[in-house]
């Protein structure tokens, strides 16, 4: 069923993981390849996104709105917005990145991945393991070999608080 008649702006509802509903213009979500296909092919008016937290969805919708308003004259303003956009705790940034990947918003995905890379560089191997929740699966012998060969890898920023 079509969400609205032609001529008017089509309205779409996105449902976040905690069942919070977000009502927005359909044209905005066309920046997401995933939602675009759903809207075009299945003509839905409400899309459940249970895997995405509402908090994350709020951020992404904020981005979609700003990006839709982007013109050559407010480029600088948009750049500042982007900088602020990723200025969140790393855990939240990772949530956003995963959601953006799922929604297939390509330009934003690249930007998020770069932002994550900028945040994790300079971290020690131990801190990176904590951030990505990875257990070392090297033997103690291999581990001490690494420490001998690349001591600098273990000397980086130990801060894994991710902000």
């Amino acid at each position, binding site marked *: 069923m079509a969400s609205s008649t032609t001529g008017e702006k089509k309205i779409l509802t996105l449902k976040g993981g905690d069942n919070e509903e977000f009502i927005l213009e359909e044209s905005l979500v066309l920046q997401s390849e995933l939602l675009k296909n759903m809207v075009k092919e299945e003509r839905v008016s409400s899309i459940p996104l249970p895997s995405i937290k509402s908090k994350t969805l709020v951020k992404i919708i904020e981005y979609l709105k700003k990006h839709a308003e982007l013109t050559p004259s407010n480029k600088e303003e948009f750049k500042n917005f982007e900088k602020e956009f990723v200025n969140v705790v790393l855990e939240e940034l990772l949530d956003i990145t995963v959601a953006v990947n799922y929604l297939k918003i390509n330009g934003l995905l690249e930007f998020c991945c770069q932002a*994550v890379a900028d945040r994790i560089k300079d971290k020690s191997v131990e801190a990176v393991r904590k951030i990505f929740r990875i257990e070392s699966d090297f033997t103690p012998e291999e581990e001490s070999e690494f420490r001998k060969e690349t001591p600098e890898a273990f000397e980086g920023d130990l801060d894994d608080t991710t902000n």
Partner: protein
Amino acid sequence: MAMSKAETLPQEIIIDILSRLPAKFVGQYRCVSKQWLNFLSDPQFIKFHLTIHADKLEKKLIYVSASNSLHTITFNHNPQNGTTDAISRKLNFQQLSDNWVRVVGSCNGLVLVVNDEMIKYLINPTSLNYHRIPNFHLALPLPGSCSVYGLGYDFATDDYKVVTLSRYRGHIDNTFVDVYSVRMGLWKRLQSLPHYRAIRMRASGVLVNGALHWLARKAPDYSYVIVAFDLSDEKFLEVPTPATLDNNNFVFNKLSALRGCLCMLFDTLENEVDVWMMREYGDVESWTRFRIARLHLEYGSVPFCSIGDDVMFY
């Protein structure tokens, strides 16, 4: 509180993030886990990393000092006041002594250097890893011969290759072509190159478009030509020179690569360099002539890009 998404990050996202890290962390983060070690050592990943960082690589120069040690120069641009600082660093290899003679090639941040015993080393000036290129049993005896060198990367086989062109002194019309595969650790001799001789015996091969280039003279009239050695199919081709140049009376006696384009250079007396640049590789119509100011740097400085240790000694 909800769990972090970090552990549910899809593999392709992790790889995307890691490929955006500066090269030095690519090396370091191999210690995170076996999975990351695999990601970060994969030739496909390394190629992707090189592609992403190609335009933002830190540009450096490397040169051999008067005391036969190797030095790099890094340029730091300061956007606040528009100045550029040059920082020089001496490279200290723990097991190698400072008897370097010449830098003879660079590719993807790796540098080929020759010492006073004419032994070639492939070095990574960032990680200080090195690989000694063994002597080839067919190499022409020294003295009595002369050689030029080149270093390049073959995408088809994901291999670095060292190329030497050598000839006996006095025998000007037969050039021997030897190629060393870093991946296999083996030398081989290709069919020799008759009717050509490389000029400027110190000129190293200039890497553009997957091929090494040298200026050469061609029998019988010894006109000047540019020969290109394709690193993948290991064959020589001639590259057309500007149509207006007289190939029997060449002043553009040096090849170089500027912004990825093959260039012929001529040092004018006015502290300028006269440049012919082939803007579209292989297109004789695209040769363009302009002049640039000459920069006074250490003799024999060779530019290389810093990329850390991702590509060397897999």
